[in-house]
């Protein structure tokens, strides 16, 4: 066992875990933040995407220990004072989800994409989502939602 500490959604957390604990297990099983999903567990689908120090990453392919001391944001950390993040709001408005399984990862990837490039084009969005799979929507409304959110977020 080793003590792994980090800041998750603004809260300092610390847990004793086995070194082989993945960041996604730390988040879901130890912190009980189950908004971050596991789709493939093989680094393909992007359901597990969270932000570590401002970068979108696949938390199923990172050890919790690698994120020691980091600032982590999960889907639960986006809404402020009961108000949805503009990206969440845009996904709702533009019907960018059906079953919702891919949505947390999709939103975390989308926010990173827009924050790095506020003036992104439709092509940038489609390429930027290469690491996120959706089995329901056909992506079209996801792309629309991200373009709309980019405008609200100041693009």
């Amino acid at each position, binding site marked *: 066992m080793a003590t792994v500490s980090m800041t998750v959604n603004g809260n300092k957390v610390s847990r004793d875990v086995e070194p*082989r604990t993945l960041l996604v297990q730390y988040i879901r099983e130890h912190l009980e933040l189950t908004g971050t999903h596991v789709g493939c567990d093989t*680094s393909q689908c992007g359901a597990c995407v969270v932000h570590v120090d401002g*970068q979108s*990453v696949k938390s199923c*392919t990172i050890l919790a*220990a690698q994120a020691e001391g980091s600032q982590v944001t999960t889907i639960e950390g986006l809404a402020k004072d009961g108000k949805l993040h503009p990206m969440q709001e845009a996904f709702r408005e533009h019907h960018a989800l059906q079953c919702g399984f891919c949505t947390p990862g999709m939103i975390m990837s989308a926010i990173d994409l827009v924050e790095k490039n506020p003036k992104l084009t439709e092509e940038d969005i489609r390429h930027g989502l*290469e*690491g*996120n799979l959706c089995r329901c929507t056909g992506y079209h409304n996801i792309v629309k939602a991200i373009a709309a959110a980019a405008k609200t977020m100041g693009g």
Partner: protein
Amino acid sequence: MYAFNYHKPKSLADAQALVAKFPDGKILAGGHTLIPTLKQRLAQPTDLIDIGGLAELKGITVSGSTVSIGAGTKHGEVADSADVKKAIPALAALAALIGDRQVRNKGTMGGSLANNDPAADYPGAILGLGATVHTTKRAIKADDFLKGMFETALDEGEIITKVEFPVPKRAAYEKFRNPASRYVMVGAFVAETASGIRVAITGAGPTAYRWADAEKALGAKFAVASVEKLVHTSNGLNADIHASAEYRAHLITVMTKRAVAGAGG
């Protein structure tokens, strides 16, 4: 995953000491190859030595006609670097084609080269540009570094510290991606360098290699017409569920042609 002990050295010297102390340990950089391998229980290291945080292995510097990239530099950092884009745009473009954004936010140049996956991109770049791989022990020329499938000249415990790329006169990389994994099916890196034309093919054989016929043809005249009629043998090429050896052989000419066009030939 089997259980292991985890270490986070504070310096390269600490990392080397840990590597020496745990002969059955493994270095962890971005983890985007090693963690999937551990999950499948294809490796059982006793200890992981995480070099991901070492500042000594990070950073990109351009001096004169050399671009030097720390082994711990992430693919996304290479892709977005204004310096790399200016000095060797083909290298930045290659990095931007690795995996997806999230993979590029974790995976490192050193990890990719040490692993030498036949379907990886960077082996094509070091060979195509005639780069030098620096380690904790020595400097290794790209032509001597790649030894075979998942095999390099690295000794046990030897750590890649940086890679030095000579700036070419012109260069371009073309990749036929596996549409599902985005790994290379066939990639061609074509460069006109101070020491002549270099054509590196990755994804097609057990490891990246130089295509002598194309180098010769382009040496005579750097133009698409010089390579478009070349026929590459399928002997010894990889064949798997994604592509037959014959299809890869065909793609080699197509990708080389496109890379020559991309480099303005």
